[in-house]
């Protein structure tokens, strides 16, 4: 049962990823990413990380993707021309992508981490629960927690600055 769920979710994730990079219309790419994110949430559940899965759906697929949808609606987005200005890019890119995948896979599979071949140790019941994560966030990882909230604040301010209605001067392309 677990294997079936894994493969379904994996195919969903992979399909979504390929959809992101292959679709001409950016809106369709956003939709593909949403599918991908849901599949990842399913995978997280399979790894008994309930809180992360929930956060993935609520935060990522729920909030971040909504942002994307808004911007794509505002900006629009046509296709891209077929001509490639950079010589060799069309040839080298897939090559490098495949090389990257093979190297990462080989690095992981041939490592001496024997535990990779198992399903993982037996975990207590509350593993991956919000309570467990919360406890970790507030006890052991308090500083990263607070720092990341600060970072969120900065990002919000930055967004406001970037999108403010400043007067656009003629020819001011390098402000």
């Amino acid at each position, binding site marked *: 049962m677990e294997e079936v769920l894994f493969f379904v979710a994996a195919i969903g994730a992979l399909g979504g990823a390929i959809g992101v990079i292959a679709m001409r219309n950016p809106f369709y790419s956003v939709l593909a990413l949403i599918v991908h994110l849901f599949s990842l949430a399913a995978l997280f559940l399979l790894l008994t990380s309930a809180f992360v899965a929930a956060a993935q759906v609520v935060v990522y697929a729920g909030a971040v993707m909504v942002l994307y949808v808004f911007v794509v609606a505002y900006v629009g987005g046509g296709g891209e021309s077929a001509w490639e*200005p*950079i010589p060799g*890019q069309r040839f*080298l*890119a897939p090559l*490098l992508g495949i*090389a*990257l995948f093979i*190297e*990462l896979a*080989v*690095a992981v599979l*041939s490592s001496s981490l024997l535990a990779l071949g198992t399903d993982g140790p037996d975990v207590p019941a509350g593993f991956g629960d919000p309570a467990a994560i919360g406890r970790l966030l507030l006890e052991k990882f308090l500083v990263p927690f607070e720092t990341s909230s600060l970072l969120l604040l900065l990002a919000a301010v930055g967004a406001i600055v970037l999108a403010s209605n400043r007067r656009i001067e003629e020819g001011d392309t390098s402000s």
Partner: protein
Amino acid sequence: MSATAWAWLVLLFPLLGSIVIGLGFKALPAKAAGAIGTIAIGLAFACGVAALISLLGEDPEARHHASSLWDYASVAGLDIKLGIFVDPLSVFMVLVVSGVSTLIHLYSYGYMQSDEGYHRFFSYLNFFVFSMLLLVLAGNFVLLTVGWAFVGFASYALISFWYRRETATRAGMKAFVINVVGDIGLVLAAFLIFRELGSFDYGTVFEKAPQVFTTNEWTVTAICLLLLVGAFAKSAQLPLHTWLPDAMEGPTPVSSLIHAATMVTAGVYLIARTHVLFELAPTAADVAAFVGLATLLVAATMALVMTDLKRAIAYSTMSQIGYMIMGVSIGAYSAGMFHLMTHAFFKALLFMAAGSIIAAMANDQNIDRMSGFGRAMRFTSFTFVCGALALAAFPGSSGFFSKDEILAYAAARGGMYVIFTVLGYAGALLTAVYSFRLVFRVLHGEPCDEARELIETGHVAHEAPKNPATGEPEDTDVGFPGSEHHIAEQSAPMRVAMGVLAFGAIFAGLVQIPGVDDVVTKFLDPVWAGSPLAAIEPSTLADWEGLGIGGVIALLGIGIAYVLYVARPELPGQLEARLRPLHTLFANKWYFDEAIGFLVVRPALGIGRFANRTFERLVVDGIVTGTAETVRGAGGVVRAVQSGFVRSYALLLIAGFAGLALYFLLSSS
């Protein structure tokens, strides 16, 4: 105050004068600059007199002091101090130099009045006097070289004073280059001295030299020969003399000061100062004596046929310095220095009078055009005759006593040195002839146009200024030479200066009448204490015999000149026609310039051309430009990576990461 303190003041005043005039040339009015310059040297002379008095108050044996301001270089066995050495010889030179310089400054005060470069002139002149005083007061070979080089520079600056004249600048460069050759000799000699004796200081060197060197050892001979190179370049002896006639491009006071009384005597001073070394190398001393003799005769022949007034007097200087060099080389130290003193007087006087005459001629220096100034310019003529009498060694004049003292010494030394006496008298005959040739040609006879104008209107000739050598018109908008010409009769400072020198030229000999008094010899004796050569003294009888022969020769020479130029004026033309090859040789200055040009200048220019065209262009430029081109090319290649495409940057990033991962995977397997 001690003698050394006065000596430091002697150095200070001219330096201050030069700096003040040089820096304040915009603020100071012309007359003030001239006054400051003259007073500065006058103060130096006064301090020199004070130093003399201070020295005289001491025991003759103890009249040598060294004093240093600070250590100049004290490293690795070198111990060079900024030190002076005060003894009768240096005080004597200080008095001669500063005394004659004061008078020349006074003369320039009037003579250079309408020159735009008045301030520059006095600043340079003061600097020159400072350098010369530094040279004679220096207490070690390093400071001597410093003064030597400064004097060379000052001479260059003053010769090419009217720097818009191409002939003047070329002459200045020629003088400087030949002086540098002499500097090389001096510096190499100093190096050798240090290597052999371990010190540059006079006291140490002269004390240790007799102990370290044996007579005629090759090192001491080499040192002396190198010193001679320096002396000959500075004193315009054969073969390094070609700069002196060209140096007449400078204003007349410059010729009077530098090329008569002071700079050219530096060589004589050098040999006298290092007499200890020369006595240890008799071969070198003999070389010097023969060169002096040769210069004496050759220069006298050249002066016989010169038609340029100042150049004729310049050759006469060369000839007389030949006497002095000869004198101090064979051992007649005091006699040589005495002749230096009297020569300073009468030669400076001759140049001053010549300057006055040239001014009356509107800067034309050709004696073929001059005549009859005796009536037009009485004072100038009088002083000119005084100088000529002293030069010709007329009985009773200063030159009479000084020149013949050298020749008497040579006879007393005997052996080979009698040649010097005989040929020296021959030179004296020639000297008398050419000096009175000048007198009769310029002063006697029917007044030329300029002279007539002067007699009739009292007005000095005035025409558009031309370069006297090439006849090209000159540009006096830059002010020089001045638009006005100043003659002695119309300028009080010039008259005072010339008058004092005329007095000295006639009467200065009275301090060294043999058998009666020998002021100079007695004063200078402690300097040569312990020298076997200085101990040779001709007897009073021999002295008077020499004086007698000298007087006869002088009168004979004057008589010959009278015959040639007054009584039978057609004779010189006939003689010239008969002895044409000889005359051409003399008139072309024995072809020394051409010889040096062929042997030295052309190869040097050839090397320079090769270096510029081939070596510089191919090798040096090639390497430099080649490196630059390589770097630029490499930069161009690297620049192509910065294409601006974000995706190509991403490609490179991922490619780099993939490569790195590959490397780590492979190395850990």
